[in-house]
């Protein structure tokens, strides 16, 4: 087969690595540097099939593989284009007893010793690169085909061996330099190494002249032609050669073990060795990734950078692709020589072997948004769907004005299934809710509801909704769509902490809810089977259009409204029945966009939009629903304390002279900052721009005349529309 290197095909054999194929074709991926053939050094990096920084010594050649060399013209590789074809990388989880990383002698022995257990072995030589050990413990492994997430119950054995130490001397960037083990591998692969000289531990089965003394430099144009050695008497000798094989000692590959500190990780074999500390080099490149020389180290030391981490950060040695595998032994020997102290190595961090973002993302879950049982119905009606509070909701049905006026003048329905719906039951249900809510829960009579705030311990508003009482041991509560998941945790934490005998049943997903609203809402419901009128803020179980509903009479839109809670599987049936029955009444569904206008006209807040982290009931005009005479409720202590502090700001209503101000717009008074808007809209029924926003007291008073978006505006009392709330209570 052939692989394509910089546009030209070269032959490669099945099972051969890209690097060996390139060396056989007399091509060096990076031009030079001492090759290790073991995935440790940065000298064989290239772009393979569009992915840069691939170690060609760890990559098996495949037919038609495209290799591009890095650092052409001294540049880093270009950013890849977005439209390159890709396949989603698959992930596989494997649960087991033991993971053994590395299948050399020590790794095989460890696997054999664990016989009888479920052992998973991974080996870089077989194309399985362990990239990290994370808490869990979890071992993340990259292969060419997929990602493996290994979950060992008992232990992880790190048997990754040791890396050979790289040479540091002038000329070490030439081609023709090999570690001893690399020389063995290449000779076995049938590559003609020419005249070989060796230093340190020599390669086996290769005819090489073993040199003594110390290395002064390597000489040659692009490829090594000679090595200059200095003997014990200080005499330099030049040895001609085609290849230098260097056995300079070992540096354990223990990054994974260090990463797994505190986890059940055992290191065996060469990976557990003490690192050899080579002699401090006199000259040459120490860090090939970042191009840091011995001179650079001397300079930075003299400049006052004397901690390992500072030297790393100031020279950038160890911050490249090999993450210090090449330079760390020399940094340590350098610092020891200069400062007389062997400093610890820098922290081992993921990733141990490299992988792409596409690979690491494998197995991640798309954060899906919940859909109500009516989702398909909305889409069929042409709704513009929007993510809101963790749900897909209809923003509008393309006819905002019609939707709005249907509510104000006729009848409209809205899917409010997203509301948090909980049953709180048990002997301590009443006591529990009394502690949770700042309102008097015990005065709510059966069949009635009350609007209430939820406060956090700091006395700030966290959520809001209804409390509906069936009896002293069973209540229905509602919460905001976006706040429910947090509020549920809140309720459960306190119930458990207090040790109260209550059950919390979250029915948000099992119950649908449709709000029927508008002056003709009652007419529609009578046609749908509501036998007798329901008073404001009461609820009743009642069959509507053949669906068992719990009907709550309330109002967020300002019009007479009935919220029909029902089994979610009946949502479509109920919705269609209401739409059909309401056809003569001109019924139209409305979306969120109309709702936020309707509620704004009524001055109803949306917790999270109109409130902030510091919103006390007092600051939002909701003091009336807080009963400080109660002995205890969450947030009471803080609220009583802050309640004595002079108010600095209030959430108020504004009317603007012209147009609609921008939500978030700054409110000015006498050219001073006076607050900002949280909600704003054009009011179709009032024919003016209205807004809610925070207004700061100025000299003890709330300003009345302000400027918003360059327009004069006026603070007005809430609500903007139907001040007597006659419509909702009709």
């Amino acid at each position: 087969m052939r692989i394509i290197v910089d546009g030209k095909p070269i032959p490669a054999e099945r099972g051969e690595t890209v690097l060996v194929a390139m060396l056989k074709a007399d091509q060096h991926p990076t031009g030079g540097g001492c090759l290790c053939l073991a995935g440790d050094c940065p000298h064989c990096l290239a772009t393979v099939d569009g992915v840069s920084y691939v170690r060609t010594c760890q990559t098996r050649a495949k037919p038609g593989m495209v290799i591009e060399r890095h650092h052409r013209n001294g540049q880093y590789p270009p950013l890849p284009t977005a439209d390159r074809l890709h396949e989603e990388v698959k992930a596989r989880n494997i649960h087991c007893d033991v993971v053994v990383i590395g299948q050399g002698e020590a790794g095989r022995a460890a696997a054999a010793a664990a016989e009888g257990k479920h052992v998973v072995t991974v080996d870089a030589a077989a194309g399985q690169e362990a990239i990290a050990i994370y808490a869990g413990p979890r071992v993340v492994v990259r292969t060419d085909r997929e990602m493996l997430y290994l979950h060992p119950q008992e232990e992880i054995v790190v048997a990754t061996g040791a890396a050979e130490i790289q040479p540091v001397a002038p000329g070490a960037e030439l081609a023709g330099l090999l570690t001893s083990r690399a020389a063995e591998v290449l000779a076995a692969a049938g590559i003609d190494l020419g005249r070989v000289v060796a230093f340190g531990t020599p390669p086996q089965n290769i005819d090489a002249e073993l040199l003594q003394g110390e290395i002064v430099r390597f000489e040659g144009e692009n490829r090594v032609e000679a090595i200059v050695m200095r003997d014990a008497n200080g005499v330099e000798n030049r040895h001609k050669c085609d290849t230098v094989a260097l056995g300079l000692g070992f540096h354990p590959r223990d990054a994974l073990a260090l990463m797994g500190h505190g986890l059940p990780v055992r290191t065996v074999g060469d990976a557990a060795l003490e690192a050899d500390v080579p002699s401090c080099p006199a000259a040459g490149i120490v860090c090939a990734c970042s191009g840091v020389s011995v001179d650079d180290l001397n300079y930075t030391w003299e400049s006052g950078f004397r901690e390992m981490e500072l030297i790393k950060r100031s020279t950038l040695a160890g911050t490249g692709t090999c993450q210090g595998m090449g330079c760390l032994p020399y940094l340590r020997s350098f610092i020891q020589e200069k400062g007389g102290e062997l400093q610890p190595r820098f922290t081992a961090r993921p990733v141990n072997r490299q992988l792409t973002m596409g690979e690491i993302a494998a197995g991640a879950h798309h954060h899906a948004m919940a859909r109500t049982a009516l989702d398909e119905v909305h889409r069929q009606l042409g709704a513009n769907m929007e993510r809101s509070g963790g749900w897909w909701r209809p923003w509008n049905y393309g006819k905002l004005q019609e939707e709005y006026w249907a509510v104000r003048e006729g009848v409209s329905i809205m899917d409010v299934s997203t509301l948090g719906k909980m049953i709180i039951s048990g002997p301590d249900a009443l006591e529990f809710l009394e502690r949770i809510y700042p309102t008097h829960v015990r005065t709510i009579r059966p069949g009635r509801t009350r609007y209430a705030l939820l406060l956090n311990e700091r006395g700030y508003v966290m959520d809001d909704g209804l409390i509906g009482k069936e009896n002293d041991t069973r209540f229905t509560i509602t919460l905001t769509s976006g706040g429910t998941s947090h509020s549920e945790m809140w309720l459960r934490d306190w119930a458990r902490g207090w040790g109260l005998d209550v059950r919390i049943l979250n029915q948000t997903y099992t119950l649908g809810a449709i709000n029927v609203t508008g002056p003709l809402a009652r007419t529609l419901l009578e046609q749908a089977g509501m036998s007798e009128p329901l008073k404001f803020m009461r609820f009743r179980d009642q069959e509507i259009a053949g669906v068992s509903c719990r009907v709550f009479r309330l109002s967020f839109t300002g019009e007479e409204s009935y919220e029909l809670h029902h089994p979610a599987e009946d949502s479509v049936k109920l919705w269609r029945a209401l739409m059909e029955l309401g056809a003569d009444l001109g019924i139209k569904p409305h979306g969120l966009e109309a709702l936020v206008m309707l509620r704004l006209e009524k001055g109803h807040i949306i917790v999270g939009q109109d409130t902030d982290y510091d919103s006390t009931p007092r600051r939002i005009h909701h003091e009336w629903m807080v009963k400080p005479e109660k002995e205890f409720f969450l947030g009471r202590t803080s609220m009583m304390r802050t309640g004595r502090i002079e108010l600095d700001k209030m959430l108020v209503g504004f009317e603007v002279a012209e147009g609609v101000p921008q939500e978030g717009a700054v409110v000015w008074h006498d050219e001073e900052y006076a607050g900002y808007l949280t909600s704003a809209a054009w009011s179709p029924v009032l024919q003016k721009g209205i807004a809610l926003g925070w207004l700061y007291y100025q000299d003890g008073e709330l300003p009345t005349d302000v400027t918003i978006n360059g327009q004069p505006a006026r603070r007005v009392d809430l609500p903007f529309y139907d001040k007597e709330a006659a419509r909702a209570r009709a």
Partner: protein
Amino acid sequence: MNEFMEKKVKLKWYEPKQTYDVIIIGGGGHGLSTAYHLATRHDITNVAVLERKYIGGGNSGRNTTVIRANYGIPEAVKFYQRSVELYQRLEEETDRWMMHKQKGILWMAHTEAHVRQEKARAEVNTAFGAKTIYVTPKEINEIAPEVDLTGGGKWPVLGASYHPEAATARHDRVNWALAEGANKRGVYIHQRTEVIDLLKEGNRVIGVMTNHGPMYAKTVMSAVGGHVTRIARMAGIRLPIRTHPLQAYVTNHYELEFDPIVASTSLLFYVSQTARGEMLIGAEIDRQPSYNYRAGHHLIQTCSFRAITLLPFLRHLRILRQWTGVCDMSPDYSPIMGFTPVEGFVITTGWGTWGFKAIPVGGEQMAELIATGRTPDLIAPFALDRFKKDRTKADRGSAGTH
């Protein structure tokens, strides 16, 4: 090839003394910046900066180096805008290269709620001196053509706020330039010097006990990151701070081709390309409070998944390194700076995930506070007693982001 090596800064180390005018605990950006401004603006040089490990080794050397002022409340916009401007001058002032580069930040909105949020950001920024505008998808495409406006078909981009003055700088170089600037004017920096306890006389801190013995000063400042609640407890103060890990990661080096900083609230990530060509990516804090520096799989897996949704080219980049810092989160997501109920003890903390961008202004203001004995107007809103006074500075513009 290594044009990024630090070639100018010189640091000098001295044996510790017994007494100083000011002791600063913590040799990170804020500690060093305060020392630098004490020396350069107030001629106060009998100052010691005590660092448990090595300077800039905490969050000052672990952050994602974003400088911006597009916050959500007037006090913060003014404060960070001052910092943006000080950063623009800092290289010239110190004559040191910090790789400072103006890039602009795009903050994507994928929902109507986030459109409102980004428009609101532009409103309050513009009113208080930070340049931020709301831009349409077409304009986003002109600024950052790499962005997939369909959001992988799942998270379409509806618009963004654009804050052209946002910049990045090399965090280490900022720390070192400030350290050197203080150092050469006489400030002592003591590394590997851990504060074991605070020395008190009545309700007054008079010095610190370190692993090298006691040191005394008229003013002791905590500029500690991560373990600030422990230092404060030594003074007898309980801080409203919870410490959460925050993680980030970088890819290998690529040609400099990606100009802006891109962030998304819905997709919870942000990305920029460093001066050295790495793509630098971060997300939100870990939910669980902890001092743990261990890097986690979930973060890098899900964050990569979200990042390639918006910037598909990232898919093919190889990851170099993942790391963690620990962030001091205040309840209102604003910093806590100034005097404490204990005399002689001042603090600068609550730097959450936004400490780096405030290094110049934080140091400038704290130096003025120490030198003059009064709180400068710019940081008065961020005093510790705001929690007691129910005057918290809730800032959604900073919440859980970089």
